[in-house]
């Protein structure tokens, strides 16, 4: 079974993000970039499937600027076998990424595609679902467990108030929740080996996909600063404020 893992290069989750002065986006110049944490979980799961003998090959793929190659190398250092870089001029939108991935899936023929449930930059939470829809494949989102059974996957989803267990037919698309696994550190031997693993580079045109933007960013602003709180003297006052000022009860 081949496993395809689409990954995204984003601003490092530990970096304090700053909005650009002209409100067109966030500052990325001189900012540390890293693999989206949910994508790390996806790579980890694929590598574990390979170690367990369930997967035969793990392919990481990323659509983005040339530097996304560094993120692919990190995936290779975690244990993926090869990489595919779809080089784009700017970060393509979720639908464009889903179309690109569909083309890659048709070319590579994986039985399972594991994506992060969302990227921590734009928090869209769309690509996995769109990809499944475009392919006409079953999808399992926010999974905390995946197991291959005969011709299908037994998955556990994290839903409000509990866990949902489903069986979906292969081939399928799944997206990872935080609790699926704890991603490993890239080991030194794998870091050194990653250099020798192949990365194919292609463009959206090679895949016949139009990635021109369909959305317009109107403005990006900082979230409003949190207002100072107030102390209340009694429960009665608290209830009164919640009811009449905050209007939440």
């Amino acid at each position, binding site marked *: 079974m081949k496993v395809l893992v689409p990954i995204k290069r984003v601003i490092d989750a530990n970096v304090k993000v700053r909005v650009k002065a002209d409100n067109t986006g966030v500052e990325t110049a001189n900012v540390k970039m890293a693999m989206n944490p949910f994508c790390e979980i996806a790579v980890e799961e694929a590598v574990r499937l390979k170690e367990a003998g369930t997967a035969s090959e793990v392919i990481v793929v990323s659509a983005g600027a040339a530097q996304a190659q560094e993120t692919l190398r*990190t995936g290779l250092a975690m244990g993926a076998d090869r990489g595919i870089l779809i080089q784009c001029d700017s970060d393509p939108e979720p639908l464009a990424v889903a179309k690109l991935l569909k083309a890659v899936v048709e070319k590579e023929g994986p039985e399972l595609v594991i994506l992060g449930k969302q990227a921590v930059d734009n928090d869209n939470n769309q690509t996995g679902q769109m990809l499944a829809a475009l392919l006409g494949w079953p999808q399992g989102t926010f999974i905390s467990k995946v197991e291959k059974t005969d011709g299908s996957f037994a998955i556990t989803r994290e839903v409000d108030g509990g866990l949902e267990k489903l069986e979906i037919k292969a081939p399928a698309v799944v997206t990872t929740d935080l609790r699926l696994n704890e991603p*490993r550190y*890239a*080991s*030194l031997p794998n*870091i050194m080996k990653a*250099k020798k693993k192949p990365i194919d580079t292609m463009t959206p045109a090679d895949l016949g996909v139009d990635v021109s933007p369909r959305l317009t960013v109107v403005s990006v602003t900082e979230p409003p600063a949190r207002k100072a709180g107030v102390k209340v003297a009694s429960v009665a006052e608290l209830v009164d404020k919640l009811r009449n000022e905050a209007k939440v009860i």
Partner: protein
Amino acid sequence: MNFGLSNEQQMIVDTVRGFVEKELYPHEARVEREGEVPRELGEEIARKCRDIGFFAANLPEEVGGGGLGHLDFTLLERELGRASMALSVFFGRPSGILMACAGEQRERYLLPAARGEKYDALAMSEPDAGSDVRGMKCAAKPDGDDWIVNGTKHFISHADIADFVIVFIATGEEETAAGVKKKITCFLVDRGTPGFEIRKGYNSVSHRGYHNCILSFDDCRLPKAQILGEVHRGFELANDWLYGTRLTVAAMSVGRARRAFDYAVNYAAERKQFGQKIGRFQGVSFKLADMVTEIDAADWLTLSAAWRLDQELPANREIASAKLFATEMLARVTDEAIQIHGGMGLMDDLPLERFWRDARVERIWDGTSEIQRHIISRELLRPLGC
């Protein structure tokens, strides 16, 4: 010239940084409070380090090490330097001098050290012989094929966790241009050897939980098989291998300074006094400017010295410059980080007072700042006949 890191180097940095933040930082406060790393915790760190193939990253692959070059290893040390030494010591980096092991010494010392089965420590200093290494008094006398050792070593870092110690011992004297000097031989001494004792050392202001020990030799009999390298060639052996420890001190100083700086710059951007963020006062912001400039300078000085070693260029002077500047920079940066925090910087709720205390030893061990200046100036003036 290329000042960028390769993909692999960046991944080494990211991996070690991630390891340090996740596996070492959470234990620091406890180690600081208790002055001790529980052995199980140390073993767990070592095991995790082995699992990711980073144990003995400095030793060549053919002996089971990670095979990193000097520059790559220096980057690793820089990131490790961010964490408490009491914990980072378990991120195993056996002494490079073990590569001088010959014959069955490789099986007994080098290979187990690379596998993390045996820990080594290195013993040079004595109560009456610090910088003046060749004035050492701990001496060995030949007795047939054996040597009988008497004397004391002190300030021996992490000998409490060592299974064996690489000890430099006087085995004779010789007349030199600078007067009578000791001839030195390097011995491998197992813990538990009769007549050899490892005792608790002093309580140091720096690196709580990373212990120094006192070694005493009382008619300790060592067979000649315990000699590392050749008889009377210990000083040369040390010079051939121990440059690495100075580079380590420089790199770790840079890492710790960056961590202290991160605290300072974030605090300056948040703390308000007189109605505005203190970073808006030049008195504070210019401190930050000076700090980062000095850290970058020390960083590049250190990396370039390591790069010279990889290129097999002379690097003795450059390593001394890096050690000198990085350790003195660390003292200034940790001091200013506290100044920016005001009183809070002195409290052990923040790690700044610890960084500041820890910084003090860096200017002393592995060759004092004065010895580094001696090395640097000698290299400049000797060729001119001065």
